[in-house]
């Protein structure tokens, strides 16, 4: 048993015993070694089922709205803590109603990378540092952890939560030195090549199941723009233009909010690189507005504030002025 799991159980017991929370939201083992569940527990017996998972692709903050009115302790690595902070900033969750049990996150494994190792994955033994022992129906393999990590963990800038009520001891991954490498690869292409990439990788694959939206902890609108019928922004057929519009607006609605937890991409049954779109917006928010989401519950959100010196050289009037035409 990994020590992080022990620490989580111990801390969770304490939190419940001291009445700091009524329920604990964390991960338990699922039916398969690479599928762990987001679970709500509230008794000592149930707490002994809590784990720190090697693979936990869905963001537990997504179920917070179902637990309204209860004081919830949340097992929070960096991205979960940040999602809760954004929910607090947007008035969806009261900071006082959530107890953040911070976990210095060693990064999680990508289920598809693990599943590629064998026909049937029987067991995983993860030291949460360097190596993972994967037991498959064909035999055992020892693989470097780095090779199996999720892309968003490899690109994570804040593995250790900045906002928490209690931070467990442990060693987190180092913040990524090149979080935007994949985005820059696409940016370097020509306009037509980027359009082709968008069509092939995103639009043509999408079956519009909206799993990306449903898995997102920050997509909580009671009626999503995609479900609006008057006006109907997104047509109901699989027309590529509608699909493209859906993906653009979905990503845009997460501008300055997305915490890059990777739930959308993990939930996607068609392996669409959804994170690239939100990551691009994250990159722009950081470079143009020095903004990162989910770091401070008291700070304003990216799009609910402005600065006088915000960039405007993208505007045609500024361009014409620079050319001396107006």
């Amino acid at each position, binding site marked *: 048993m990994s020590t992080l799991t022990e620490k989580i159980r111990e801390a969770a017991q304490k939190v419940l015993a001291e009445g700091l929370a009524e329920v604990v939201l964390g991960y338990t083992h699922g039916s398969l070694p690479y599928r762990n569940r987001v679970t709500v527990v509230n008794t000592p017996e149930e707490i002994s089922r809590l784990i720190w998972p090697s693979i936990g692709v869905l963001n537990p903050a997504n179920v917070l709205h179902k637990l309204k009115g209860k004081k919830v302790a949340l097992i929070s690595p960096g991205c979960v803590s940040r999602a809760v902070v954004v929910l607090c900033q947007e008035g969806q969750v009261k900071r006082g109603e959530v107890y953040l049990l911070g976990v210095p996150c060693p990064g999680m494994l990508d289920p598809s990378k693990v599943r590629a190792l064998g026909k049937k994955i029987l067991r995983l033994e993860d030291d949460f540092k360097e190596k993972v022992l994967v037991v498959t129906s064909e035999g055992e393999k020892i693989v470097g952890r780095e090779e199996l990590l999720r892309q968003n963990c490899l690109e994570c800038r804040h593995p250790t939560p900045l906002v928490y009520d209690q931070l467990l001891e442990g060693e987190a991954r180092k913040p990524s030195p090149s979080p935007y490498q994949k*985005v820059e690869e*696409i*940016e370097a*292409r020509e*306009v*037509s*090549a*980027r*359009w*082709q*990439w*968008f069509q092939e990788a*995103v639009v043509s694959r999408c079956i519009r199941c909206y799993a990306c939206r449903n898995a997102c902890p920050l997509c909580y609108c009671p009626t999503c*723009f995609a479900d609006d019928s008057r*006006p109907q*922004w997104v*047509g109901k057929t*699989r*027309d*590529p*233009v*509608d699909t*493209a*519009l859906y993906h*653009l*607006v979905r*990503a*845009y609605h997460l*501008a*300055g909010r997305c915490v890059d937890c990777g739930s959308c991409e993990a939930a996607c049954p068609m392996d669409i690189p959804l994170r690239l*779109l939100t990551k*691009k*917006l994250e990159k*722009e*928010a950081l470079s*143009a*507005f020095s903004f990162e989401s989910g770091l401070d519950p008291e700070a304003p959100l*990216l*799009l*609910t504030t*402005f600065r*006088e010196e*915000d*960039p*405007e050289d*993208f*505007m*045609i*009037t*500024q361009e*014409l002025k620079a050319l001396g*035409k*107006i």
Partner: protein
Amino acid sequence: MSWEPKIIAFLCNWCSYAGADLAGVSRLRYPPSIRVVRVPCSSRVSPAMILDALKSGADGVLVSGCHPGDCHYLTGNLYARRRFYLLKKLLEFVGLDPERVQFAWVSASEGDVFAKVVTDVTDRIKALGPNTKFRKVLRVEGKS
């Protein structure tokens, strides 16, 4: 007859719409390419509205509002500026011709600027040709 692009122009009620009006009463010449949608403020324009215009067959979209500091609602255009910046970057990223979506500041006294902006935007979109990428047409499933 040469092809004239269709451009949807979202003009804010307080500055740019009046600027367009001034261009008209001053008898300034500019291409008959724009279809004006009057909005209360440039920040009323959401990305879905811009993309919907393209989807519905527009060849370009122009969003114009008051200069920073001139907003009738004091700060609406400053919020809009941030949003449009991000939208433009996202559209560029996915390879939608960035010139098709343009943003401008035009005040109520800048009829000449409005005419020049429309002329320039029209020229740019003419150079790009009709919007075929992001226009919804009847398609047979499985064929593009």
